[in-house]
């Protein structure tokens, strides 16, 4: 028997994330590894669970295998429920045809049938490409208190950066009177976090209207939100205070990883009340060898460190050989850095190994940018790969 859920979350996870280049070659952005033992989507999924939301639809379209496998039954997040839980929602065929998700709003529109199965009063729309810890329940309380039709979470950004974001201009009571997408002269610093709570009936009405408008790009930010504002719907901005980062670019992904290091990290993962849950990979403890040096870094299960690791984030099963150095870098799982090799200011995708005496990337202050090595490669002995270079040219046989 179907039971009512107060709030259902819909997590948009279908985007390609093309600005992450070869990291999203065979992987959807939400499944990109992050922070030593997580994937980006762990943050939104954990936020849902930590907020008491137990029904989450994950909308997938681009390269879904890794993401599907990762989410599985939802068990790592306690989302394997008898009723509700996490459900993967790919585009599907229906009697009158088959359509790809045309935009964020269209993706939700095509899955209103899923939402309505749970008869929720509210729908929470999330995107799977941000790193932050947030209690959505407080936002929902705010939404209810203000009798809003739609509440949009916003975060204060520096005025100098405001023109990179969708900016909400609000009245004193928090109601939104104007939305500007990437304004040249921003009037406020309240940037949309891409997190919306809608009253279900209102969402349905506007998504239907949006679908009937052939000129629409079927996007929440570009079409649905402006239309609702124009119609005078009750729209409120919910101010979020805390760490929030869009990890849509190589630079921001690198920065967000670095934000986990240090004695007082900008993003602290050690908060029992807002635990970030992830799928466990069953690896043994990590080993620091006789001549290891590990400073200001994150190291996790399965790593074997015989060399030097400074200002870096290492994922599960990474091996750093004797005499090798990893500095200012993010190294995804199962990479092996050979003897005497130096990796600086780089991101290495999964299972990429270097031979001996390689030089990957250049020092962070060289101004050359981050070197990005794709997955499943073997870099031969003595290879030099300069700063800012992005390559997938050294694939292992059969990859």
């Amino acid at each position, binding site marked *: 028997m179907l039971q009512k859920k107060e709030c259902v979350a819909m997590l948009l996870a279908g985007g390609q994330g093309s600005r992450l280049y070869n990291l999203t070659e065979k992987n959807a952005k939400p499944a990109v590894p992050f922070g030593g033992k997580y994937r980006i989507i762990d943050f939104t999924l954990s936020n849902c669970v930590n907020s008491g939301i137990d029904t989450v639809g994950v909308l997938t379209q681009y390269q879904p295998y890794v993401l599907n496998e990762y989410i599985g039954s939802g068990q790592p997040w306690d989302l394997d429920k008898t009723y509700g839980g996490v459900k993967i929602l790919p585009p599907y065929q229906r009697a009158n045809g088959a359509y790809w998700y045309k935009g964020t709003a269209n993706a939700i529109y095509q899955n209103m049938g899923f939402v309505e199965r749970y008869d929720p009063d509210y729908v929470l729309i999330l995107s799977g490409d941000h790193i932050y810890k947030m209690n959505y329940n407080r936002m929902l309380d705010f939404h209810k208190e203000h009798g809003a039709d739609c509440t949009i979470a916003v975060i204060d950004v520096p005025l100098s950066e405001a023109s990179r974001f969708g900016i909400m201009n609000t009245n004193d009571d928090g109601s939104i009177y104007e939305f500007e997408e990437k304004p040249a002269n921003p009037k406020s610093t309240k940037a949309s976090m891409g997190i919306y709570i809608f009253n279900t009936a209102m969402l349905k009405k506007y998504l239907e209207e949006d679908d009937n408008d052939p000129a629409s790009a079927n996007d929440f930010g570009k079409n649905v939100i402006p239309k609702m504002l124009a119609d005078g719907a009750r729209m409120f901005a919910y101010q979020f205070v805390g760490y929030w980062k869009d990890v849509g670019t190589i630079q921001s992904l690198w920065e967000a990883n670095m934000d*986990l290091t240090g004695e007082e990290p900008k993003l602290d*993962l050690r908060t029992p009340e807002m635990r970030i849950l992830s799928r466990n990979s069953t690896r043994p403890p990590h080993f*620091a060898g006789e001549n290891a040096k590990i400073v200001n870094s994150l190291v996790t299960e399965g790593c074997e460190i015989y060399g030097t690791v400074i200002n870096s984030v290492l994922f599960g099963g990474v091996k750093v050989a004797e005499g090798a150095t990893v500095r200012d870098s993010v190294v995804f799982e199962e990479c092996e850095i050979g003897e005497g090799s130096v990796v600086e200011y780089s991101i290495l995708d999964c299972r990429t190994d270097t031979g001996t005496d390689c030089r990957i990337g250049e020092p962070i202050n060289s101004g050359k940018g981050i070197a990005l090595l794709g997955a499943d490669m073997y870099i031969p002995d003595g290879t030099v790969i300069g700063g800012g270079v992005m390559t997938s040219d050294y694939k292992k046989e059969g990859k």
Partner: protein
Amino acid sequence: MSVTGIIFSNIHDNNLPELTRVRTMASVPFGCRYRFIDFTLSNMVNSGVKSIGIITQENYQSLADHIGTGKDWDLASRSGGIKLISPNITAFAQDNRRAYVTTRLESLKSATVYISSRNEDLVVLSDCDVICNVDFSDMISFHVKTGADITLAVKKTTLSTELAEKNVIIKSDNDGRVNDLLVYPRDVTGDHDISLNIMVMKREKLLDIIADASAHGYTSFNTDVLLKNINSYKIMSYSYEGYFACVSSLAEYYACSMELLNPDVFRALLGVKDRPVYTKVRNSPPTRYDEGSYVRSSLLADGCVIRGTVENSIIFRGVTVDKGAVVRNSVVMQGGYIGKNCSINCSVLDKNAMIQEGRNLSGHQTLPFYVPKNSII
């Protein structure tokens, strides 16, 4: 052949009174993130055993907490999975019969209901404190191929008189048929096959043995079942070559822990391809090394914060080593806190020990200093 598993969780508790005061032998923490029972459980799971009964007697809250639903071993299953077999003390038991079951045979009696409720052909029985990475399916094929009634896993070991007194020596002929057992012998030294306390037999056979033992008031599996029937049963010995440790004192616990720092031992136990060791998932974040950390020749679990020196040590989940602190040759269990400028040497710190700023603790390799669970020093 389908196989069900039986694990004895309280066996040998007396060997480690310090560590088993608040837990079973099965749930003694070992190797940064494991409990003793994880090795046997993983061995069984990795060998295709899909139903496991764990016989408990007392003090098993920590074990129940560790096992949970069994999902971390993929044993949360409708048809089998993991079952904690609680002690079977009926309401009408006489006071004197209420005494806790003490031997393997007696605890098996309490598991009769479980064993008869299964439908697998074979049963593999193991103690909880055998630290090894063994492929039971190989042992099971051996059992089937030789047509044995009972197969015992053995390992050739060089014994001191002290070690011999804690072990069962298995003597077999050239074909591997067991022809004698020396149970905790005195004054024996040299190379001998010792029992790993792992057995395979038909499930029906085990039920017959239990019924017969019950009728005769037998108590010891080794002397009353195996020795008495050494000619009438076909008992075979299966030789295991890999790493094996059985811990029978705090000093041995310490020595075995330190042995993990040898990469060969580590790989033989924890790095075997396709035979990972599973344990309870705790969702600890990665370990963070801050400025001032100096770590060498050590194994560390996730969730730690390291700002001091760690050498030659085993550091469990969620341990903090603060600035200027030095931890050497020690085992620090989950949630330990080592304050600023502390010095810890040759010590075993049980869970959640808090060592305040500037303290010095030291034991010796032969007698490590033990800090009980939740202590504040």
